[in-house]
């Protein structure tokens, strides 16, 4: 398995999944022309990656400035996978980062968190 790095564009975020540190991040804006096409390889990577995990601490940092409705569906799918994996004993944490003044992003984080009983989901404001 290899690291996954996708450069950010105007409408897609930077994907930086690092196997050596287990610190992974999604940063930028997300409103791809075809959300499922863009996220398909990312989902494949995540599913394969979770198969390889044992007890190591894994952190996914999500720092999105803007995302459209189909991206929020993708995010919920992704968090469901993490939640399922956490239920099975994997040590996964999601850091949901929002701008201090961006109440909407904070509320999105809270909405997502509501349906994730097993996953460690931390909402942090960026100062």
């Amino acid at each position: 398995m290899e690291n996954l790095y996708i450069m950010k564009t105007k409408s897609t975020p930077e994907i930086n999944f690092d196997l050596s540190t287990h610190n992974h991040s999604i940063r930028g804006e997300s409103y791809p022309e075809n959300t499922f096409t863009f996220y398909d390889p990312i989902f494949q990577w995540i599913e394969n990656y979770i198969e390889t995990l044992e007890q190591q601490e894994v952190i996914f940092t999500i720092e999105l400035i803007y995302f459209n409705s189909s991206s929020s569906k993708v995010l919920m799918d992704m968090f469901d996978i993490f939640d399922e994996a956490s239920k099975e004993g994997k040590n996964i944490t999601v850091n949901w980062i929002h701008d201090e003044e961006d109440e909407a992003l904070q509320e999105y984080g809270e909405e997502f968190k509501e349906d994730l009983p097993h996953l460690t989901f931390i909402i942090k404001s960026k100062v």
Partner: protein
Amino acid sequence: MEEKRVSREEKLIIEVEQSLAVDTNLNDKRQMIEKLLREYKKNLKQLDKIIKMSDKQQKKLNIKNKLLEGLSTKLSCYLSPQIYDSIFSGRQDVTLKSSRKKLTIFFSDLVNFTQTTENLEPEILSDILNNYLDEMFTIALKYGATVDKFIGDAIMVFFGDPESKGEKEDALGCVSMAIEMRKRMETLAPIWMDNGLRQPFKVRMGIATGYATVGNFGSTHRMDYTIIGGQVNLANRLESNANPNNILISHETYSLVKDKIFCEKKDPIFLKGIPYPIPTYTVINFFDKIKQRDEINLIEENITLYIDKDNLKDNDKKEDIIHKLNIVIDELKALNENKK
């Protein structure tokens, strides 16, 4: 061609459909159908959440929009409607940019405003002043003027930017506006006198047409959409040289309106930096309006004669005019004799 969006659930549905098409034994597909149901339920839940989040944001956006709407309505009172429209429609950049345009520029000022109003309480004075400016503003808008600014009792407006109907129409619009403003003053005077004004306001107006620099001036934090240039100074000087209740215009404005509006040639004025005298004209009225009034006027191709009977109560004035007319008649007779 745009790629079709296929979610994970849709993929599964297609897979199940294809399996069911070749095999009717549902028992073998139970696991798959159960998974599909689970995914479908999850999908519905997600949909629910997205709608909830979207509604919440929509509500917030609506509140913000209403707030912005209210603010922009308040802000609009500080801007000329044309400038406001061009900024809010995106046609106008809010940057320190300017351009040269042919404009007709108008200035007006109340004669001896301070002396005329010194006996008034400040509240009454501000009521009268606001009423005056409001009435004049309404007339300016009616003719499509861009109201540049109010400076105390003075008004500065221009025609030809951001919208222009052509230089002739712009000049005609401006002079027509000035005539209506002057006329309106006559009907407003008794109302203000009832409110305590000792004597009616008299207004001086000046109009000039020519190229001026128009745009945003100031700093990037605080700017004014205004005009600068020699013609602006000229319009201002014409205003200060006008007699009370008179509209003094420049030669260029006169050239553009003379077909429709009767004007009298007046003394030229001198401007700082310009070595020659500048011809000026005072606006009387529209030709068709003059003909309806009790005035002597003869406006034909070879002769323009206008005498305001109201101004002839004084016998000396009458004598003076008769004397002048006799000189003209004698000169014409002499010309006629010479031809024979």
